[in-house]
């Protein structure tokens, strides 16, 4: 695994414009960064990332199965009791999932360690499935990269195939795509998934989350008063549970992507549960609930994560007792709006550093199949939502 600086394509911004990739630069800073790329061997991809990704996904499903039957565990996951029946039903029905992203610390030599599972509202799929694919095509066409260069990235192909399967399960329904207003990144992500659904033959429509309404039968409606019967929402389940319409969830004849049971997987309480069910698994870091800190070895430094944390917010470093560590400037705590729901603790495991960049690998699953990777770089140890996205190749 190497980080290789390279020339940017001279016309890439025009190409981005042509394909509607609008969020490559944010607040004047690079988000898409093609001044370098990462190079992997096929073995690093297949043994180091692909195989563990599919195995961990199966382990995560085992956690859902254990948690869903257990009131105490659902409480530990900070899921409101009023939603338990709704979530259980979706699991018992076998409601299908579309996608997830597992985040790993991996340096190409050791074993990939799971940081977390973004199973409900993962983003950067457009950059992964489409945009870095185009980058490689262009680089090969201009002979800047060898024709044998490959990429771990069958994301778009698998997405379209998955949408075809979902279409067969819902042949008569229109699929509504939804995200919040005022975010170019989320709008672009949802547009990409909608394009893939259209390619699979699905009738689609878009609605902003804030514009969703209800009729007198508690059915959800879009801005044109059409009843929503099938919906992809780039909006977390735990937010939906808190929102005003949360209390009527489950009263509609509606299929959800991602399904409600994903509320258990996108939750940081997943991490201590994985460690409980699969202790000492090589791809897992030890993780603990707050009342399990007595199990932590005295020499272990911990990362404290809010149960509902997103994009690296509200994360801090502690000693084995869960007490904050002061004074070490290399361990910069992050601020954020989360934490009132409780915390979990995970063994600190720093990201590998390549040319002063901390590198995080996102490994994508389409349903239960590993489908590709995305690479994020940050100058700080905690990857946040302004981290840069870099392409990769296999050679």
């Amino acid at each position, binding site marked *: 695994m190497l980080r290789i600086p390279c020339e940017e394509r001279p016309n890439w911004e025009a190409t981005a414009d042509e394909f509607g990739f609008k969020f490559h630069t944010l607040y004047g800073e690079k988000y898409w960064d093609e001044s370098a790329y990462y190079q992997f061997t096929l073995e690093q991809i297949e043994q180091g990332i692909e195989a563990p990704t599919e195995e961990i996904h199966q382990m995560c499903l085992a956690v859902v199965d254990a948690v869903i039957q257990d009131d105490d565990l659902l409480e530990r996951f900070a899921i409101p009791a009023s939603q338990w029946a709704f979530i259980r039903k979706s699991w018992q029905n076998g409601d299908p999932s579309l996608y997830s992203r597992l985040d790993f610390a991996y340096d190409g030599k050791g074993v990939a360690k799971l940081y977390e599972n973004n199973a409900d509202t993962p983003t950067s799929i457009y950059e992964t499935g489409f945009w870095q694919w185009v980058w490689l095509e262009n680089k090969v066409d201009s002979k800047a990269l060898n024709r044998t260069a490959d990429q*771990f990235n*069958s994301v778009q192909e698998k997405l379209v195939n998955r949408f075809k399967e979902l279409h067969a399960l819902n042949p008569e329904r229109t699929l509504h795509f939804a995200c919040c207003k005022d975010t170019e990144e989320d709008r672009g992500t949802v547009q990409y998934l909608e394009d893939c659904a259209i390619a699979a033959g699905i009738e689609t429509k878009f609605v902003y989350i804030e514009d969703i309404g209800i009729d007198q039968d508690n059915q959800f409606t879009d801005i044109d008063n059409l009843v929503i019967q099938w919906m992809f929402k*780039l909006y977390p389940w735990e937010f939906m549970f808190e929102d005003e319409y949360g209390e009527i969830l489950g009263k509609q004849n509606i299929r959800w992507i991602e399904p409600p049971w994903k509320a258990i997987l996108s939750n940081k309480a997943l991490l201590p549960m994985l460690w409980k069910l699969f202790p000492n698994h090589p791809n897992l870091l030890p993780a603990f609930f707050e009342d399990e800190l007595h199990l932590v070895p005295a020499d272990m430094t911990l990362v404290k994560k809010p149960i509902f944390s997103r994009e690296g917010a509200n994360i801090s470093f502690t000693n084995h007792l869960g007490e904050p560590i002061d004074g070490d400037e290399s361990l910069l705590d992050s601020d954020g709006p989360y934490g009132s729901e409780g915390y979990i603790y995970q063994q600190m495991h720093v990201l590998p550093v390549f040319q002063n960049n901390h590198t995080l690998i996102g490994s994508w699953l389409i349903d239960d199949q590993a489908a590709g990777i995305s690479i994020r770089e940050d100058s700080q140890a905690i990857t946040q939502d302004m981290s840069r996205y870099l392409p990769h190749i296999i050679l």
Partner: protein
Amino acid sequence: MKRTSFLDLSLMRKHSRAFALAPLSLAVISGCSSGSQDEQVKFVTSVSECTTTTSLTESECQAAYEQAVLDAEATAPRYQYERDCLTEFGNCERQGSFFVPFMTGYIVSEIIDEVGDAFERKHRYKHSYPAYLYSGSGSYRNKIMTSDGHVIGSPGQRSYRVSRDALKPKPKVTRTISRGGFGATASAKSNWGSSKSSSKGGWGG
């Protein structure tokens, strides 16, 4: 190869694509989409016309009519202002707080019920949908149209070939009694502190 072997880039270009949605009644006027098989339907303006021009019995024609009326209540194109409805359909009525076009007739397709007695095969209606006469300007003027904007053809033909897509159940239109019950939690979180001001503001992870 570990990557997608082929991407149709022409499908991914966004130059001509707007994010905003066109008005409902025009957004879906797409004609027949390619690939799906056609089906033969008849357009009738009354139960008696139905009994003379199809193989259906009077009671089947009556049932098909009632089905179309029910369907119209749920799926008819809705307009907030009467003038907008009149511009496109000429004859409109109030339905709740909206205006909807008068149903000009209904389109039926037949099926022979093989499940019954083999010597007494029954013709049943397979589909029955409300149909409207479009009277707006442009090439769809005076064409028969379904609730969701599929064009069937000009009136007066003995039968019409339409794509299966045109005969799919129409999305239900309802009356929204409140909006905005989702999104408040995200908005509360994004108002937090100042560091979010430098963020992209999305809720993905």
